[in-house]
């Protein structure tokens, strides 16, 4: 198993102090951005963004629709020129040394950046040629990539006939024709089914295992939780919180108790009982048998549970979990992360632009 797996999140939190460790290792920063700004007319898409991404890690940028994730990534990948602020990628300035940056990074954009009219094979041969492979080597390289990304059977088909998951994989394959040291992934799993999402996650883990640094943006809270060593939460073009997943969670509270009753009819009776025992407000979930509460003191939980059973309330399940990143987002921004992830409004805005 590669080192960066979901189970490692606590391990990351245990490191003495990741922030100062990264700061001390100055030259090993893959990305160092300070005060990046990009305006589109009156829209402040990115509004003073600071980022420090250590080499060899997966860095998650988490934010709702319109937070400025894509704009930030496009600036870092040298596609957009910042209006103010500066950023260095492996110590190279993204404006004055853009060409040198380009030879060390690759970008997988939010919307597939492959040629729909060409076949999968042609797309990869094209990119291999552009990276400087000879005609013959380019074909070998393209075939090998198609094989590795499980696309060999569709090699001769036009990309417009590919499914969303296949397109994503081709897009990722196109990003690693020459192994990049830093790879930008803009919402790599948006719109994918769970199986395709797992495939993409595996690809990302393989990239990191080979030593690449990954910066990925996502609206999926659990994606950042699973993949990223460190997470920056951005809203309105600024970083509003930064740290490991566990650090972010612990900044909000110790956790939440989720309880599910056998008999939904007992809920009205269980609610005040639980609230009193926990000394905290109890939320009624959409599920008619479920209740939850934010817990400040874990000691009270055992007490509360035994009180429920003494009162004759039978529990189907109960769980004491860390707060979800959803709750983190709510606590940090005062508004919940957007629930709809098919980014309808954002894509129409982009199309109109």
């Amino acid at each position: 198993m590669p080192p960066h797996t979901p189970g490692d999140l606590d391990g990351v939190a245990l490191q003495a102090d990741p922030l100062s460790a990264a700061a001390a290792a100055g030259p090993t920063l893959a990305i160092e951005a300070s005060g990046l700004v990009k305006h589109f007319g009156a829209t402040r898409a990115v509004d003073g963004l600071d980022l420090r991404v250590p080499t060899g890690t997966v860095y998650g940028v988490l934010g709702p629709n319109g937070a400025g994730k894509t704009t930030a990534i496009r600036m870092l990948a040298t596609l957009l020129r910042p209006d103010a602020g500066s950023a260095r990628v492996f110590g190279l300035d993204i404006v004055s040394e853009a060409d040198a940056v380009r030879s060390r990074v690759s970008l997988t954009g939010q919307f597939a950046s492959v040629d729909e009219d060409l076949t999968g094979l042609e797309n990869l041969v094209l990119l291999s040629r552009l990276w400087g492979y000879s005609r013959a080597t380019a074909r070998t390289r393209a075939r090998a990539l198609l094989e590795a990304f499980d696309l060999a059977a569709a090699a001769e088909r036009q990309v417009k006939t590919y499914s969303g998951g296949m397109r994503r994989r081709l897009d990722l394959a196109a990003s690693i024709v020459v192994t990049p040291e830093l790879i930008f992934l803009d919402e790599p799993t948006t719109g994918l089914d769970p199986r395709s999402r797992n495939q993409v996650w595996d690809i990302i883990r393989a990239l990191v295992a080979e030593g690449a640094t990954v910066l990925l943006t996502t609206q999926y809270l659990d994606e950042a939780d699973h993949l990223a060593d460190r997470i920056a939460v951005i809203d309105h073009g600024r970083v509003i919180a930064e740290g490991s997943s566990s650090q972010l969670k612990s900044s909000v509270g110790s956790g939440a108790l989720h309880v599910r009753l056998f008999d939904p009819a007992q809920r009205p009776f269980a609610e005040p009982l639980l609230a009193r025992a926990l000394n905290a407000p109890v939320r009624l979930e959409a599920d008619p048998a479920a209740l939850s509460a934010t817990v400040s003191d874990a000691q009270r939980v055992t007490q509360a549970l035994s009180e429920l059973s003494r009162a004759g309330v039978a529990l189907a399940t109960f769980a004491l979990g860390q707060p979800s990143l959803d709750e983190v987002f709510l606590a940090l921004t005062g508004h919940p992360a957007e629930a709809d992830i098919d980014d309808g409004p954002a894509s129409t805005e982009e199309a109109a632009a």
Partner: protein
Amino acid sequence: MTAITPRQDAQTAVRTALSTSARPARPGPVSTSLTFWWRALLKIKHVPEQLFDVTAFPIMFLLLFTYLFGGALAGSTTAYLQEVLPGILALTVAMITMYTGVTLNRDISKGVHDRFRSLPVWRPATLVGPLLADVVRYSLAATVMIVLGLALGFRPGAGLTGMVVAVALLLVFAFSLSWVWTMLGIIMRSENALMSLSMLILFPLTFVSNVFVRPETLPSWLESLVAVNPIAILVTAMRGLAHGHPATGEITAVLAISAAFVAVFGPLTMLAYRRKT
């Protein structure tokens, strides 16, 4: 997870693909342009309908103008054809250059250009490639028209060689003119607006010329306009080459105008391309 083994296989496959990639040397501008040229040709292969304009237009224009104006303007269609074919050839290809802008406008609005722009390659190649592929389309249009012309009785005085040189001059001019549409294609937001603007420029340019009528027959203010119209100069040069009395002044002028188009609109296009968000 139920399928641990296949997923680990997948990871291994990806890791192998990654570790085997040694970095090749960076390709030069010519090689990069040719790669983009190849891409444009592949697109023609996959969407051959794109060739409709370069085959249908020449046939329609030649038949229409020869038989519509031939009798009235020159007394006989065959006599008229000798004069008008080089002109219609220039007019048709100039008209077709407009599609370069439209195609490019459509192309760069797609995500794949983000990838091209994030590669460490010679940037203009992204545009030079498609323009070179368009030269192939223009050649096709010229061939269609000349073959049809020969069938209708066109007999170039300088034979095939003269005609080939005339077409070569036309291709140089068309390639250079394409940069204008390329720039507009990048700047303008909508395809329709681009089409309208192109028409607005091309119609006067092609019709206020010596393609169909002798400029001497025009009112003097119009005649002086025709004298400085690049298309008119091109047509005079082509007629001379086709019929064996090359007009050196006009040929030089066409080459100079072409160089000027590239020198002015090439950098402007690249600037617009860089700025495009």
